[in-house]
Each structure stands twice: as structure tokens, then as C-alpha cells.
């Protein structure tokens, strides 16, 4: 996969994909939650991965394989018809001040990057989320972790990175890249945080359905159609 004009790979996340994931983690405040990112390499710029949608997965027993396997199969099959695929992974830790990339996040990230190299792991940044209501921060409330290949050292550039990127180097370690200047994660719609704050005030998170709930009640739709209507 190529890199952008300045040699860096960027991830652009759509408002809906972004908000859905954050709302999902707010719905299950006391648990770790995860989800997958859906999208494709931008047809206009090889150096940009467009994350156009997301699917919230689980809020319990994240490291168990069977529900994960079945969800990935179904999600891939659904989106392939739209020319999209699973391009990354989202994870929110259980504890407020836990900023580590857990074992399960790394494992799932590894798996996804086998099919989509350069797949990022997005980690929810709780402190930024908390500060959302106070500030006018327009950067995403997530840290980005990416897989780094041996020789290429991607530099985190950019300004006001609310996201930290996790980069995997040759020893297969996902590392959170400190937000030193740059963010590889861009919000496609600049006002996404404003919309997110609105939804939080109106407790929209109550409406988010994840795969866990679908498995317990098939009538619940993990595609969340109509969530943002």
C-alpha cells in the first residue's frame, strides 16, 4: 500500500463511524468494549484510508473467539457488496486511566492487519472524552495505533492530535505513538465533536446495538440503521 505525498499514511474517519463507537462505549461505561472499522483505501489518495463505517462488537468477554469469528465473517460478507472491508479495530478499556493496548486488542489487530495491512487500532481516550463537554477540541477522542513495518518508520506529524497512533514495529509490538505534534487520525467532518456532544446530552447511547446484543436477541440489528436519523 502506498503512502501519501508526504510519506505518511492517514486515516480519515466519518462522523457516523466515529460517533457510533464512542456512543457504544458510553452505553457500557463499566465494561471494556470493542468494534471494527469498515472502509477502504481512498480512491483519490493512496495515502488515506477512509473509515466510512463501524460496527460495535462486544461489551463482555471480548477475548473469546467464537462470537468474534462469527461477527467478522458476517460483517465482511455484508460490506463486501459495497466494496468495503474491515480496515481496523476499536477498543475502549474498562478503566478510566488505562491507556494500554491490551493483549486482546493486539491479537485482534494482528488478525485484521493480516487481511488489511496498515490496519490501525483506535483506543478510546477517556480523558479527552471527559473534556469534550468543556472544550472546543475538534480532534478525535481516540488514540491511534498502527502496525509498523520493519524499515519504514512512519512519523506522527500533524497538529492537535487527539489520537495517538499505535504503531507495530518489526517485533510485532503495537505501540501507542505519542501525540507529538501530529495526528494520523482525522475527522472527516470537522464538527463531529459538536454532534457527538449533542448526542451525549440527549443520551443517544441508549440506542446503540452491538453484536453481543444481536446474538442475545436476533431482532436487534448490529447495523444500527436509523441510529442517526
Amino acid at each position, binding site marked *: 500500500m502506498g503512502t501519501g505525498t508526504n510519506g505518511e499514511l492517514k486515516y480519515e474517519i466519518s462522523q457516523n463511524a466515529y460517533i457510533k463507537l464512542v456512543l457504544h462505549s458510553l452505553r457500557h461505561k463499566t465494561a471494556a468494549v470493542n468494534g471494527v472499522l469498515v472502509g477502504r483505501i481512498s480512491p483519490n489518495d493512496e495515502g488515506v484510508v477512509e473509515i466510512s463505517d463501524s460496527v460495535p462488537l462486544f461489551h463482555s468477554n471480548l477475548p*473469546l473467539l467464537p462470537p468474534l469469528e462469527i461477527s467478522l465473517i458476517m460483517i465482511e460478507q455484508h460490506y463486501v457488496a459495497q466494496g468495503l472491508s474491515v480496515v481496523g479495530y476499536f477498543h475502549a478499556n474498562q478503566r478510566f486511566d488505562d491507556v494500554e493496548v491490551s493483549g486482546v486488542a493486539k491479537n485482534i489487530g494482528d488478525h485484521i492487519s493480516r487481511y488489511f495491512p496498515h490496519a490501525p487500532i483506535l483506543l478510546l481516550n477517556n480523558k479527552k472524552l471527559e473534556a469534550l463537554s468543556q472544550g472546543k477540541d475538534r480532534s478525535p477522542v481516540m488514540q491511534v495505533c498502527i502496525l509498523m513495518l520493519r524499515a519504514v518508520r512512519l512519523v506522527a506529524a500533524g497538529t492537535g492530535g487527539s489520537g495517538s497512533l499505535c504503531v507495530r514495529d518489526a517485533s510485532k509490538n503495537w505501540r501507542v505513538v505519542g501525540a507529538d505534534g501530529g495526528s494520523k487520525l482525522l475527522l472527516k467532518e470537522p464538527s463531529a465533536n459538536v454532534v457527538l456532544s449533542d448526542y451525549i446530552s440527549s443520551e443517544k447511547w441508549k440506542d446503540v446495538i452491538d453484536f453481543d446484543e444481536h446474538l442475545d436477541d436476533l431482532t436487534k440489528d448490529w447495523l444500527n440503521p436509523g441510529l442517526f436519523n
Partner: protein
Amino acid sequence: MVTKTEERELNQLENQVENGGGGVWEYLYLVRKLKVRRSEIVLKHGLSILNDSGKRSALGPDEWILYEQVAMAAMDCQSLAVAQNCIKVLQKKFPESKRVGKLEALLIEAKGMWEEAEKAYSILLEDNPLDQVIHKRKVAMAKAQGKPSLAIEHLNKYLEVFMADHDAWRELAEIYVSLQMYKQAAFCYEELILSQPTLPLYHLAYADVLYTIGGLENLIAARKYYAATIDLTGGKCTRALLGICLCGSAISQLSRGRNKEDKDMAAQELESLAATALEKEYKQKSPAKLNLLSSALRSLKLS
């Protein structure tokens, strides 16, 4: 654990309460009885009763139970000032009470003052060394501080004494799973199945863990436990039905080229029955996803 009926009743009451339809006291009572965690709603509505002196006095002696319930909900929502006020009222009414003492220690814990909380709990334990709630607080504190091994240590010690506490075994299993210590989690579920063999939840969880550990023997065992779950739930458990299909696929992948044919003919029939049952369920409840399910099942057969 809460049954589906109980959960439905609770959610109905909750909807009613949230939409101004009354029934707050019944809701609060049910939350207490089922021991569920609905702190934000409890705090909101419990507090509105407590702040209204007319409603409060109408409760009679139940007033103090409500103060306790609201205090705990407040702590869960980090409304520590509210919690402090409730506890003050209880302290005035019941000075020297151990039950209030527990709330005080809980408040210290909620503030994140771990060492002081540790001390407070130790003092309480001196008077009552068999207080299960306090022992569990120690586990909770270890978890909150991000010390899962310490939580495991405490929980194991607890289970040596209170080995019939199923919730504790489940908690331990879930901590192990979160640390990807699957074999240890499996042991916990084995204990649970031994003590409550008719609860499908444990068979299902055990099967999931076995599948995750992997290997032919574990997959075959997992399939048996998924089958048990289906049996115990009258065929209604989607997760178990999917589990059967996943196992079938994984087993055939592993035994391919090993000349070890899956000699269990019943298993193959089981798989196709599971697939049929799944398609029926999806047709009925989620018809838009039926195609997805069918192609997923097909891809499992091919892999």
C-alpha cells in the same frame, strides 16, 4: 443472575419511571431485589423522593433503606457529595452502626483513597471476618487499581472459604478471560457446571473458552457443551447453534489430512440441524440478515 422475565419486568418499570409514569418505589425495590446496577436512574429518581419531605415521610422506616440505596448509586455515578449527605443522615440516625460503617468505607473507596479504604475494610473485617461484601470490595479495589493478579489472589482466597459462591466463580472466570488465561477460566466454569449442571450459561461459557483454547480435543469437547446448551435451552440459544457450526468447521480443518475422519456421524447431523435451526430463527426474527447467515454458514462448511 436475572432471568429474562425479570429483566423484561425491570425494563418495563424503568421505561415507565423514566417517562413520568410513576412506579418509582416498585422500580427501586426491584433493583434492590435483583441486585442490578442501574445507578444513574436510581440516583435520579431516588433522590427526587428523598428531596421531597412529603414523599420521604410517606416511606416510613423504608426511608433509611432508600438513603442507603441512593448513597451507593451516587457513589457509582461519582456524585460523592450526594453520597456524603446520605451517609450523614444515616450516621445521625444510626450512630455506631456497622452497616453505615460499610458505607463510609465504600465512600473512601469511591474517592480513590485506596490505602485508607483498605484500612477501613480491615477494621470492619476484624469485627466480622466472614463479611462477604467486604471481601469482595477488596477484589473490586484491586481491579480498580489495575492489579488483576492481586484481584485473582484475593478472589482465590475468598473462594477457599466461600466455595459455593457462584457469582465469585463467574467473576474469577471473567477476570481470567480478560487476561487471556483461558485454562484457568475453564477450571472455574468446570466448578460451576459441577455445582449447577442444569444452567446452560455455564455450559455455553465453557464451550466458548474451550474453543478459544483450541486443539482437536478441546474443539470436540466444546461441541459437546454447545450441544448441552442447546439441549438445556430447548434449541433457543443462537450462540450455541453458531458454536456447533464453528466447531464443525474447525474440527474438519484440523482433522483433514490426518486421516482422522470425524467419526461422529451424529455430529454431522447435529451440524446440519443447527444450521437449519439458525436459518429458521433468522427468517423469523431477522430476515434481512438471512442471506448473510446463509453465506456465513456456507463459508464455514468450505473452510
